[in-house]
């Protein structure tokens, strides 16, 4: 049996997806925590693993895997344990459709606002020369642009407004879909739910005016059901910052409209 090593940040967004998938499957892995705020992901030791400098990356024996959603499908197919993809082909299509919407349309909007509020301010205290050098080390030009914006706070009003529009619309879409069935993409807990929890667990903290038990009862029901799973509890306990602790709001039996944690 080859060992599994996962290079990840917090149980959140892309890092949390393979973490939670591995834990749901009961696969033991060596956890290699990378501090995104200290730019660990652009240091030579990590670039030797993943030259693109993106997180997460997974080693399985000699294999190096990147792209969090594709890693999750690999984890589901490669290892024993409960199936995290439904058996019915049309359900599988729906899982992939939702994961793509979250990965490419909704997630980047959450992340733009998250980086403005959290990541940017967290790194801004660092020495400017050190920051400049850190940016220069980023291999992908798109990521260089993204980091420069986050560090300088140079987001345009229009692009932030567009992200807020997408967040509000995405929340409505999730609520409507979750009113149709117990889980996001099928009647069975799947990778779409793992992906969705990583995107949405902080909703009632960050967007209490848009997501609460009055406005989005189905989202809250869904988030609490995922949070109650032993794998989720164990996974979120691996968080080292206040970011992962936001999930604790889901222990409240009722989150009223506009309530801030």
């Amino acid at each position, binding site marked *: 049996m080859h060992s599994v090593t996962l290079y990840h940040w917090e149980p959140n967004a892309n890092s949390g997806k393979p973490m939670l998938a591995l834990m749901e499957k009961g696969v033991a892995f060596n956890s290699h925590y990378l501090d995104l705020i200290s730019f660990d992901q652009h240091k030579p030791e990590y670039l030797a693993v993943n030259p693109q400098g993106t997180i997460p990356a997974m080693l399985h024996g000699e294999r190096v895997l990147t792209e969090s959603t594709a890693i999750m499908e690999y984890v589901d197919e490669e290892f024993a344990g409960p199936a995290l993809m439904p058996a019915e082909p*049309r359900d599988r299509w729906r899982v992939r*459709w939702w994961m793509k919407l979250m990965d490419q349309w909704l997630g980047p909007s959450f992340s*733009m606002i998250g980086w403005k509020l959290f990541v940017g301010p967290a790194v801004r205290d660092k020495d400017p020369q050190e920051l400049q050098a850190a940016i220069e080390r980023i291999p992908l030009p798109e990521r260089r642009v993204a980091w420069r914006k986050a560090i300088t706070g140079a987001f345009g009003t229009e692009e932030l407004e567009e992200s807020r529009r997408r967040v509000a619309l995405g929340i409505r879409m999730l609520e409507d879909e979750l009113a149709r069935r117990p889980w996001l993409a099928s009647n069975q807990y799947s990778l779409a739910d793992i992906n969705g929890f990583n995107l949405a667990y902080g909703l009632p903290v960050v967007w209490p005016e848009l997501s609460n038990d009055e406005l989005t009862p189905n989202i809250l029901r869904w988030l609490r059901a995922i949070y109650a799973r032993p794998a989720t509890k164990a996974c979120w306990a691996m968080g080292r910052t206040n970011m992962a602790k936001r999930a604790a709001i889901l222990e409240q039996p009722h989150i009223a409209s506009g309530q801030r944690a």
Partner: protein
Amino acid sequence: MRTTLYHGEPNGPSLTVLATLFAKEVQADLVHIDLARGERHMLACAQDPLVAMGVEGEGPVLVVEGEAMTDSVFLACYLDDVGQGAVLRPTDPYARWETMTWCRQMIERTAPAAAYLGCRAHPPQADAELLQRIGSVDLRARWREIMTGSFSADHLSDSRTKIRQTVDKIEQRLDGRQWLMGAFSIADIESYAWLAGMVSLVPEAFAARPRTAAWLERVRGQPAVRKALSLAHTADPAAVWSVGPEINRWG
């Protein structure tokens, strides 16, 4: 099981789905619609959230037992699951990861670039009433930009770079291989579907790339791809474009 495919000219996403459907011998009613005139938004299912909000932009719609499905790579995965004959995705999990990761790069980096360049050279045209029917605000904004000719120099230049990088990657990948994933797969179909129209628009990307040139011919010669191309209503389907996926707006 009643299956209907609404598709455009066999190029880009429509070509991916048509070729996969034929390769897997899936029975379906085929309905040609003009994606370049926005006719997808006239369909009864146009406002279904998973049609209206698809990230792919103007692509085909597969309706199975009343459920309208979009997104060409995932439709191809579906057809691979339900159809007959040789699998179009490897069965080994690692090889499947490679296939899905390859397709993700095509979806995220190559497709937006190809659609942007394709639409500039061959602009789609929808009338004002039709534009009003477009459920997605950001897709409607992309239509407006394209129809008013508002192409950004940065995006055009970046799109050409993305096409060059894709071809470089294919050329390397084909070293010692006939097909991108070993056997003919969804990765070949998807990559061909976005690149066929780029040969004339970004010729420098294909210059001195003999393995890619031979591979393009091989894909074009596959019976399922030939059958898909034979459905064209125009002389050169690779010159028919509609609004594609958004160019990455953030990181």
